[in-house]
């Protein structure tokens, strides 16, 4: 008995010693990483020369946090996790009963989204609802729609596209330019924008048909940058970096959303407010996003959708079975691009202003990150990822109470992209298969089984 106690005690002290060693090591690494960038800050003085200001306390905090964190991790968190894993492995397998909520998740989510604006108005009033409907609702739904569109290319057909934002830009500029120059309405230009974007999808897709994997990613990135640079430099048409402003608003069956006598508010006998237009936009993007999801679900059951998935799993087998890989790839590009174009023209009508600034590579990266983090191919997972990543960073704008902790100069917005990037890394390392890591096969023999994401390929297209 005493013997056992002494071995556990010695194991404990050994663990503590190791934890201390690792803590010192990570403290040193942290010191090395941050000594130049956190300890010293380059500032401009009054004569506009660069000077250094010193922040040694901040650096010390960084190092101490790293050391304490590493110590707790090695000494307590890791043994606890190992123990839990062992206990889980020892416990008998329990067949999990799916709850009502998880079975009907998508239906519940759709109903909740439809009810979202009235509930918000009831809670915070018409003016208060602006922020919640616009910043959270519309903003997140745009990304959901873009990610669902990209999902057709990346998740279904397995073609890695890093320049998706180009099609978003094509859609936005189609609406912006044609409505300013020719005065066409949103409802006419929405399909036009989709069609034009789809054409661009084919044009850009055609030369890259032979490429696979990373090479495809890089060429699409190059195309995305080329389109942005053309938008910047073709100043006679696009007005360059100044962007196109004063883009016409959308109308609901000819009813305008303005303060005029036959505007929406006057007709309905409501007080004039910009919130109604935002709510209209919310339902518009909700409808567009659901259309994307519906088309995706239907296409997956059609021959073309099955060809996409076959292409993703194995291109060579696909070709030997007589599937025309050229048209399969091009349809995937075109369909994905079309939804990007729809989203783009919605973006233009919502902002009332477009400039090349909105279509940088970062946007493509964010959309791709949402698709991958959501667990490629899973519509629900992608929607969840969009809510977490975009909603999470939007919430940062609201965290004014942090000012009380870190002082009045603290601006949480500044940390938005930093935290977004960190979240991308952390989620990916923690769940490499995304939030929803299982897929249901569309075609099956006798019995439908959910397949773990690890068994499906990501495609080398």
């Amino acid at each position, binding site marked *: 008995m005493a013997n056992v106690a002494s071995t556990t005690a010695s194991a404990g002290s050994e663990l503590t010693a190791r934890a201390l060693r690792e803590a010192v090591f990570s403290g040193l690494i942290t010191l090395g990483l941050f000594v130049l960038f956190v300890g010293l800050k*380059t500032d401009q003085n009054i004569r506009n020369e660069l000077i*250094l200001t010193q922040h040694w306390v901040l650096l010390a905090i960084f190092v101490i946090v790293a050391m304490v964190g590493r110590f707790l991790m090695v000494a307590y968190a890791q043994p606890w996790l190992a123990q839990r894993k062992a206990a889980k492995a020892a416990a008998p397998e329990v067949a999990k009963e799916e709850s009502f909520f998880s079975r009907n998740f998508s239906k519940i989510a759709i109903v909740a989204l439809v009810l979202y604006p009235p509930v918000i108005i009831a809670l915070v009033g018409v003016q208060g609802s602006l922020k919640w409907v616009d910043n959270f609702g519309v903003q997140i739904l745009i990304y959901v729609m873009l990610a669902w569109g990209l999902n057709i290319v990346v998740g279904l057909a397995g073609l890695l596209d890093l320049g998706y934002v180009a099609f978003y830009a094509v859609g936005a500029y189609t609406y912006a330019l044609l409505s300013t120059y020719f005065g066409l309405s949103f409802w006419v230009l929405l399909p036009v924008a989709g069609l034009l974007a789809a054409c661009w999808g084919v044009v850009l897709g055609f030369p*890259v048909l032979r490429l696979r994997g*990373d*090479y495809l990613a890089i060429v699409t990135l*190059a195309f995305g940058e080329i389109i942005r640079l053309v938008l910047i*430099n073709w100043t006679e048409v696009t007005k360059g970096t100044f962007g196109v402003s004063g883009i016409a608003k959308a109308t609901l069956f000819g009813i305008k959303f303005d303060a005029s006598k036959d505007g929406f508010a006057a007709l309905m006998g409501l007080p004039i407010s910009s919130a109604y237009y935002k709510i209209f936009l919310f339902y518009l993007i909700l409808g567009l996003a659901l259309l994307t999801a519906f088309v995706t679900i239907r296409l997956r059951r059609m021959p073309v959708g099955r060809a996409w998935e076959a292409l993703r799993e194995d291109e060579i087998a696909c070709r030997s079975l007589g599937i025309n890989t050229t048209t399969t790839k091009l349809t995937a590009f075109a369909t994905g691009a079309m939804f990007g174009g729809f989203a783009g023209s919605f973006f233009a009508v919502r902002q009332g202003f477009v400039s090349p600034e909105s279509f940088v590579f970062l946007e493509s990266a964010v959309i791709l990150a949402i698709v*991958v983090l959501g667990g490629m191919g899973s519509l629900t997972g992608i929607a969840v990822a969009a809510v977490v990543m975009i909603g999470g960073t939007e919430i940062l704008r609201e965290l004014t109470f942090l000012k009380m902790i870190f002082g009045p100069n603290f601006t949480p917005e500044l940390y938005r992209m930093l935290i977004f990037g960190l979240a991308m890394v952390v989620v*990916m390392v923690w769940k490499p298969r995304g939030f929803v890591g299982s897929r249901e096969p569309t075609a099956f023999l006798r019995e439908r089984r959910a397949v773990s994401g*690890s068994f499906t390929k990501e495609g080398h297209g």
Partner: protein
Amino acid sequence: MEYFVQQLVNGLTLGSIYGMIAIGYTMVYGIIGMINFAHGDIFMLGGFAALIVFLLLTTFMAGVPVVLALLLMMIVGMLTAALWNWTIERVAYRPLRGSFRLAPLITAIGMSIVLSNFIQVTQGPRNKPIPPLVSSVYELFGISISLKQIVIVVITAILLSVFWYIVNRTPLGRAQRATEQDSKMAALLGVDVDRTISVTFIMGAALAAVAGTMYLMYYGVVVFTDGFAPGVKAFTAAVLGGIGSLPGAVLGGLLIGLIESLWSAYFTIDYKDVATFSILAIVLIFKPSGILGRPEVEKV
């Protein structure tokens, strides 16, 4: 004619910088088959480290000889960038090794966002100009060559020889080449694959930091967004030269530099990046293996 030669000199300088960054891309791609998107930001980080060392020297040790200052900037930049790249590989790429192909690409993009925003938050979003370090200009047959151009080309040549020696003549380089060809087989034969990969990241980052220091010296300014465009162009260079090939990366870098400066000189400067990206697309479409690369064999 003199104008043309002048542009050649400028392009060669720019190309040397791209070549040094491209080596990091090509080595990492060769060894683990992954585009290290954060590499461009490591280059920017190296530039910032050099900037801070420069400011430290001018504040606390005024009157340091320029050669010594440049050397210190380079060494500290190399150490810092190497440590960053090592840490990034450790926390963001290594746990995903053996996972599906897109996973490390996403963490690399995430890391690139983290690095540029980290510098924006800690060092501020404004341009950081420094006074010129070396300003002498020599006239040679009507062409003006500045001392900094000579410094850049000479340092590139020296570092590339050192690298060539390490990769082709040392046990470490042999381990790297073995891991590149077949990492499983290399592991079976006693090569520490994880360590070799770490060393590759460290070497790539060190070169990128030197490129960052040269960039800072050449243009006299650095800003937190500087990682992206040179990063993509350096990757273009790596692909153009044939990814996985060291001489190819340098050759590609020089070509991209030349194309960029000649295009700016004879056509419009606005579309110089469009030219570079178009070349990337054209090369990939018609000769994906690049100039000096080996063609990829499709395995069933």
